[in-house]
């Protein structure tokens, strides 16, 4: 658990950080909460030559409501997100990430930038149809969740870009649930299901954690339920695994994950409907 040698800098501003990142080249990495990157470094699976620590970028912390949505600073911790109940499903899901120590250090921007589809926030961002704001040498751009996640640990973020903000629509009138299936409380989800229901099923969103290389929207379930009622949940949930190709691992075969997706989709929708 001993990382290789690296350079370290902790700039005072976003601009300085981006400059350091660019100058550091492709082996430079941004460090936010460190709960994904540092373990990889200690196991020598990642060996960045330069760490650009974001800890002094205090502008990137905090949550504010603006223009019908929420702007969440990239350095806002999971613990802070979990306590902001106005965020709805995002707060609920953030409270289920790992354990308290991880939630106190890990950040929403860091988690999304890591691009791990077994993490909880990617599915939430996708279901909520949120976006991230990225800044790089050529300025700022907003990337929709649908565009952001590309494959296992691959995102639309360029090497010289930084997530500065996460944008979530205010989901007024939506009810929600996030069903996370784990062996131990602190584990990554074997499968997670984010379900959101507006009014009496006027609209429905369902997204999966850890059912593929990216978070996945369960479009077939959504279509089968939209405009229907609670009575249609059981039938609709049967379509949950359609089109998914989840990776098997130590704890779950692909078949089992597809089975869990169906069960958890039904449970999440029932909970959301009853919320």
């Amino acid at each position, binding site marked *: *658990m*001993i990382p*290789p*040698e690296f350079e370290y800098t902790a700039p005072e501003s976003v601009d300085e950080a981006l400059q350091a990142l660019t100058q550091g080249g492709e082996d430079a990495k941004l460090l936010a909460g460190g709960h994904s990157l540092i373990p990889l470094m200690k*196991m*020598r699976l990642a060996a960045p030559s330069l760490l650009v620590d974001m800890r002094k970028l205090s502008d990137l912390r905090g949550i504010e409501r603006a223009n019908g949505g929420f702007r969440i600073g990239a350095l806002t911790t999971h613990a802070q997100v979990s306590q902001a109940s106005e965020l709805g499903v995002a707060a609920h899901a953030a409270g289920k990430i790992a*354990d308290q120590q991880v939630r106190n250090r890990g950040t929403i921007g860091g988690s999304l930038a890591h691009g791990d589809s077994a993490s909880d926030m990617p599915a939430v961002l996708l279901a909520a149809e949120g976006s991230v704001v990225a800044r790089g040498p050529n300025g700022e751009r907003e990337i929709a969740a649908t565009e952001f996640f590309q494959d296992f640990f691959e995102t639309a973020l360029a090497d010289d870009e930084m997530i500065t903000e996460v944008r979530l629509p205010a989901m007024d009138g939506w009810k929600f649930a996030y069903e996370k*299936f784990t*062996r*131990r*409380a*602190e*584990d*990554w989800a*074997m499968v997670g299901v984010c379900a959101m229901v507006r009014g009496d099923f006027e609209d429905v969103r369902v997204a999966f954690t850890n059912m593929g290389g990216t978070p996945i929207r369960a479009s077939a379930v959504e279509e089968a339920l939209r405009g229907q009622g609670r009575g249609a949940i059981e039938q609709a949930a049967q379509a949950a695994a359609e089109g998914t190709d989840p990776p098997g691992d*130590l*704890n*779950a*075969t692909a*078949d*089992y994950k597809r*089975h*869990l997706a169906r*069960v*958890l989709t039904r449970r999440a929708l029932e909970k959301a409907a009853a919320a």
Partner: protein
Amino acid sequence: MSTVEAGPTGNGYVGQAIRRKEDPPLITGKGRYTDDIVLPGQLWAAIIRSPEAHARIVSIDKSAAEARDDVRIVLTGEDMTDLQAPLPMAWVPPGVEIKTPEHWPLARGKVCHVGDAVAVVVADDKYAAVDAAEDVIVEYDPLPAVVDVEEAMKDGSPLVHEQFGTNITHEWGLGSEDVEEALAAADVVVERRVVNHRTAGAAIEPRAVAADYRAGQLTLYTATQIPHLVRLQLAGCLGIAEEHFRVVAPDVGGGFGSKLNVYGEECLMAYLSRRLETPVRWTATRSEDMQAAVHGRDQVDYARMGMKRDGTIVALHAKLIADLGAYQQLLTPFIPSFGAFVMSGCYKIPSVRTDIVGVFTNKFPTDAIRGAGRPEATHLIEVMVDQAAAELGLDPVEVRRKNFIPKEDFPADVAPGVTYDSGDYHGSLDRLLGTLDYEGFRAEQARAREEGRYLGIGFSTYMEICGLAPSRAVGPSGVGIQAGFWESAVVRVHPSGGATVWTGTSPHGQGHDTGFAQIVADRIGSTPEQVEVIHGDTDRGPFGMGTYGSRSLAVGGESVARAALKVADKAKKIAAHLLEAAPDDIELRDGRYQVKGSPDKGLTLADISLAAYVPENIPDGMEPGLDETNFYDPENFVFPFGAHAAIVEVDAETGKVDLKRYVCVDDCGPAINPMLIDGQVHGGIVHGVAQAMYEQVVYDDTGQLVTGTFVDYALPTAAEMPTFETDRTETPSPVNSMGVKGVGEAGTIAASPTIVNAVTDALRPLGVNHIDMPVTPLRVWQAIEAAQGRGSGPRASEQGVPEGGAQ
């Protein structure tokens, strides 16, 4: 049985739930673990380990690492041929040959498991060492690996050690010769294949070693449970006389058996320090600890239990196929045999036999992990009792009651050839049922099933054998372990009246500092605060055997008690002399040595010790000082027992098991400190529940270790456990003066069948009649799918159906 003047005689500290003296430094960051010890001029070692499960070493190119400025030396196995002996294996059972390959700290010629050490780099700091290790280029010629123990037994299997022509290390048996006849006479024979999978010790402090050789004297700091035995064994490997060799076990952060060994890294650091004449150290990373600290369990067991239709057990045959891994560590081949001694369980079974086959595979060696053979045997017996009850349509509690050895039969001789010292198996089960409301649960279970919910209850009524050990029974001409198993103690009262107690045991979390202080305080008329217990340093007291096998209290504590009584006896003589009374008229009351009937005439321990060390007025011919030593070799083992029950709910859709209640009644004799007992029972249960539900060391088919970190090796946390409902009965052992037995392993021994029986009970309405550990959601779901005739379930052999040929 031995008799010693019975204590306690002083202030009544024994029996009190006194808080652990050792905790304040440990929980405020003031502990001193091996990795905390800084030695002047120390260098850091990093070990290059094999990524191959089985391969010839073609070449090792050290040149790039050696060229680095901050590297002091790079060594391979071939550079260390001046070692005097390979690493030790200490079991030589009379009449049985155990195939034991030479096992060196660094591999010579070939590697036999992932993580096998092939080279070492010593550098100026730990970062430099790990960086340089990446520059050592090892070329391997991979060989086929064998991972499955039953595959390894077949003709044509890859051979872990070609020179033996087989992977079978030995066969060994214990118990009744007439077991086949007894089984043939049974009404019903229940047969099952039960897999007891591989687990890790997973101590939170990984292994760590720091060696300091200077001016002909070697000091080795190591995270071990057995400092004296490490010194004895490594003295032989290194060719260093014991009198020039000191081993220190400072604070040790858990062991669970994984530090009950003599490891290559201990030998290697000592060797390097001597060669470089400067301190050299190494601390395992978590991943190193997962791949190169002994694992436990890993048996495939075939049981046949002969029953009468009324539920009487008439015979039990157990065939244990033990996956020993690639080498023989200190007690690797012995561990399954330890289980054979408890194969009769709590039951009066006329004929019981255990036959064991040891087998090499391309995995790290197994050895003693908490319970060491007894959890495997107990799991097998207790699962079989439930299976037999179900097959006969009887209640599992009633089958247990019917077969218990009755209280009046103790001491009880059992078929495996040991004599249980004491027991009251009905007593602990009755007390458990009183807490549990068994009938109420069965009614609730029936209601829940109507709602489509699956509740289950599981029992485990266990006994175990501990208090290692009577040397004549276990030593070279007995079971064949090449050691004695007595324990030593020194009680040294200082001139000012405080006392230092030395114990040859070597605690690593158990609480000896507190419990032993209570024992001594009562016996010499002091307080636990004034009694300091020291251990784990070969230079500070007599030879001792260490801490394992739930031996510390029943053997080490008894030795401490006996040394304390010798001190008290001398103190009484001095008090009698000073008070002008007869020694027999002096009694220790309320912490004072008083003349019986004259409480105003008395002396404190401090008064007496001052007189002993300034000996102007002590009895003629008496030696000065107040300092006594004891060596205690027990005449029998001790046999704790108890009854455990678990209530689970299984989510039949997802397969997830929710442990809702865990209730237990344990009997380890009279309590020295009930809080320490609860701590041991809690930890023990977690360890057993962990094996049943969470933890498993997994190697894939090519021998790669899949569970190399705590992400994949699912050590449970408090969040996964219910609040345990613990209770005790106290049946004194006749073996020692305090009547005490061990309790460090009891919870682990009892817990795994409790869980598996509960899960099986819950799943029976779904057609699942047997399931092996760990009962993960995936495994439970697959078992349900298979039983319901859906999808791809586990293969037949994972459903407890013997595939034949292995009897």
